[in-house]
């Protein structure tokens, strides 16, 4: 139990520090931004690499995302979102936009390239137990059917669209859409109780 409290405290402390750093960024403090980058870029690069499996795209994306974080630091609302949630949303959106654009380009020039990757492989969800929020989400994901759980995880972590999920998992598009819609509804209901 004390371990739990400790890690809770550590997370709270880290969040406070990230918030202070973002606040200093609004005052144009590049040193604070450098420290923010140091504390967060490993995690966010990991997130981007999952979505964009090419390193070159992932690096472009991370660069764009951090410039956005700097430019928008004064739009960050600490009372509405944890700093990592806010930053990872910027990074994910950047990655998803890039992915949609590049997928279109590759699809037009070399469509066979897109079928090579392992994007449809199952994602193990057992490690979701580190934080309280993670445990809650994990419990709620456990209540979904396993295919529902997998398409939601694949979509979130790898950036697959409905169509891609359908072709990668060999499931009809309509079924995928239903799984996701119902899965999200169930998840929301479960997390709110």
């Amino acid at each position, binding site marked *: 139990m004390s371990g739990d409290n400790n890690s809770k405290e550590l997370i709270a402390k880290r969040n406070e520090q990230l*918030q202070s750093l973002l*606040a*200093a*960024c*609004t*005052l*144009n*403090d590049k*040193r*604070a931004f*450098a*420290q923010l*980058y140091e504390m967060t870029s*490993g*995690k966010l*690069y990991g997130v981007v690499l999952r979505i964009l499996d090419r390193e070159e795209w992932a*690096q472009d994306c*991370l*660069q*764009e995302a*951090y410039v*956005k974080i*700097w*430019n*928008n*630091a*004064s*739009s*960050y*609302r*600490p*009372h509405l*979102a*944890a700093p*990592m949630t*806010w930053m*990872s*949303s910027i990074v994910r959106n950047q990655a998803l*936009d890039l992915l*949609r654009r590049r997928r279109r380009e590759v699809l037009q020039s070399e469509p066979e390239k897109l079928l090579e990757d392992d994007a449809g492989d199952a994602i193990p*969800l057992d490690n*979701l137990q*580190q934080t309280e929020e*993670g445990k809650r*989400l994990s419990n709620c994901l456990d209540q979904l059917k396993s295919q529902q759980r997998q398409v939601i*995880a694949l*979509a*979130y*972590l790898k*950036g*697959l*669209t*409905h*169509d891609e*999920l359908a072709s990668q998992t060999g499931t009809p598009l309509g079924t995928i859409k239903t799984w*996701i*819609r119902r899965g*999200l509804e169930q*998840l*929301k209901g479960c997390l709110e109780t």
Partner: protein
Amino acid sequence: MRDKAGEYVLGTLSGDERSQFEQLLATDLGLQAEVSAWEDRLSPMLDLVEPVAPPAGLWSQIENRLEPAAAEQQSTGFWESLIFWRNLGMVAATLVLVLGLTMVGVRNDPAIDQVLMVTGEQSQVQWVVGTSGRSDQLQVKAIAPPEMPAGMVCQLWMENPDGTLKLVGVLPHSGIQSMQIPAQLSSGSRFKISIEHEDRLPTKRPTKDFVFEGGLTKI
């Protein structure tokens, strides 16, 4: 579109649906809250992602593109500014390159070592106050200042542990302002805010109760 917030955050909307949704999102506060809620719900899944150190050269590429002018743009919502930056991306990238080359070494960037977030009733940030070690100036940035009745302004005060209260000045409505620190700053210094008549500003003591009080936090 309204019920698509979850799928938008999940990332399954196709390109067209995604851009339509973002257009709506830019102005729809309810939808923005809905999206934030979904980001909150799903983000623990990112715990599954192992950190990977980005290549060493990436930071300097990012650093070269940082412009204080960009961080200065005022009081547009996050989504507005996001779309603004997306559209202006190309132009901005070119400008930054040009400005970056001409402005290197000219600017004097503050290295902030302590910050105070001035918050309102719903704990929303209104101003950020920062100090930097050797400077006798406070840097104050207006984030989302509260609406004031006509003719009223917010005055910032500083109180030291010995009880002396000094006026710092009127808080800015927008942008960043430097303000002289009126007395020796100590770790116990408190900052307080009162709402005053613009044309009868007190200099010794506030005429009204403080609406905010807080201290600096070391970064």
